[in-house]
């Protein structure tokens, strides 16, 4: 039995219950308050940092880096992936190299990137761009190669020429998988920026958390975690909405059969 009201109550109630349990555990001394600040304190701290603009400033710094790096990396990755997916010889020549580079954790090359791009914004944007590029190029190549051959045949049967084939069949056919790559890349970009800011920044959410640790203020660390969680959910939702816009054929806008509402 599925009751949407009960489901919503469960989905909201369970985390509230857990947070209550956490508060209780600290009050009773089961958890050490030096590592796990009580939720009440976290919420108060979060509210203070939100209203005095501290969080906004750090968030803006991180988001700017992510957006700039993601835009560069995604554009380059998309172009390269479309080329690799379409031209077989290019794929044969470069795919092994790209796959090999792909598996290197991008955080590992951060020192190298800082050596090349210096300590300023450029190195942070570059590391995000690199991380994004590899994920997008690999997924885009696979997306293009994976376009159902039947649709390509249908295109040929109706006289599509090279460019028409690309615009009408290859690109839309590959789009869903390309978007999956973009979503993965954005998630990774968030991880990478936090790590980069831990060691190589004077602002940003990563820096903020690192600084809170250095100054032994766990409640501020937790406020930082809340921001990261919110950013993750927000980016996921934004990509999903853009995806629905760009690929309306994937959306089921005609509810029918199967979906029974017990409400």
């Amino acid at each position, binding site marked *: 039995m599925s009751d949407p009201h009960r489901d919503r109550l469960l989905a909201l109630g369970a985390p509230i219950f857990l947070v209550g349990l956490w508060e209780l555990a600290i009050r009773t001394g089961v958890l050490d308050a030096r590592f796990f600040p009580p939720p009440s304190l976290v919420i108060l701290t979060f509210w203070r940092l939100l209203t005095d603009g501290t969080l906004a400033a750090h968030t803006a710094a991180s988001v700017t880096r992510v957006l700039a790096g993601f835009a560069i990396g995604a554009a380059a990755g998309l172009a390269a992936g479309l080329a690799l997916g379409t031209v077989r010889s290019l794929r044969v020549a470069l795919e092994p190299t790209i796959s090999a580079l792909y598996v290197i954790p991008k955080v590992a090359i951060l020192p190298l990137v800082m050596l090349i791009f210096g300590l300023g914004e450029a190195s942070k944007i570059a590391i995000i761009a690199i991380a994004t590029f590899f994920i997008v190029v690999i997924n885009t190549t696979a997306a293009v190669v994976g376009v159902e051959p039947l649709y390509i045949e249908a295109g040929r049967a*109706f006289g*599509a020429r090279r460019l028409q084939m690309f615009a009408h069949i290859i690109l839309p056919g590959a789009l869903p998988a390309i978007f999956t790559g973009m979503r993965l890349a954005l998630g990774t970009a968030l991880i990478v920026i936090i790590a980069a800011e831990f060691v190589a920044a004077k602002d940003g959410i990563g820096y903020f958390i690192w600084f809170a640790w250095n100054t032994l203020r766990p409640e501020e660390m937790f406020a930082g975690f809340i921001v990261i969680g919110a950013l993750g959910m927000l980016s996921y939702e934004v990509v999903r909405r853009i995806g629905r816009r760009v690929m309306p*054929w994937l959306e089921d806008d005609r509810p029918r059969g199967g979906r029974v509402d017990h409400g």
Partner: protein
Amino acid sequence: MSAKIIVSDVTKIYPGQGRPVVALDRVSLKVPEGEFVCIVGPSGCGKSTLLRILAGLVPCSSGTAAIAGGDRGKPLHSLVFQEYAIFPWKTVLQNVAFGLQMRGVARPEREATACEWIGRVGLSEFTDAYPRQLSGGMRQRVGIARAFANDPEVLLMDEPLGALDAQTRLILMDELLHLWEADRKTVVYVTHDIEEAILLGDRVVLMTARPGRLKAEFTVPFTRPRGIEVMGDPAFAGLSYQIWEALRDEAIAAMGPRA
């Protein structure tokens, strides 16, 4: 009558992994202008391969297959795919107008033509729907409309009703007869259903199990225009049985050796 389609000595060998597959073995076929010829044969005998060769999608290993061009500046052929192959990312309208669009027909003109065909296959209220919103039968109607709207010299249809339930098939067969009746194009129609072949075709050509060769052919005696009522004619059952007799051994052969 002049031959619209001439297939002579066509052999098709797929290289395949391991051992090559001989899909067609010296197949020859002449189809006069305006004839509706049905090809019947067991699964895997090379029917789709023959249509793909005619549509210029795969080359033949030896022999020649040619469709005589007309003077209308129209495309030579349009293919209705066994697997529908309509584009999920295009609306019904965009799918049906696809061939015209590829040929550079201006938008208002191609959309008018497409709408007309969408109407004829009874999908007007789904003009702007995406394929995922359609049932299997509706999708294949789109595939059929896409081919007809392209106004080709020759229509190539590969088991267009193969994946549909019995009732939908009957309805669509009747619709197909009427659509075709309008301008009586040359048609090569592949099916594994004998009754469908007799109902629709002027001639039924039988293929052997793989490697596909032509085994026999039957002329359908019913006059045009016809409808599904000919299925009640005793001659229909007679011809149907005659073809089944000839096909049976091939169908059994196609199922492979049994212990």
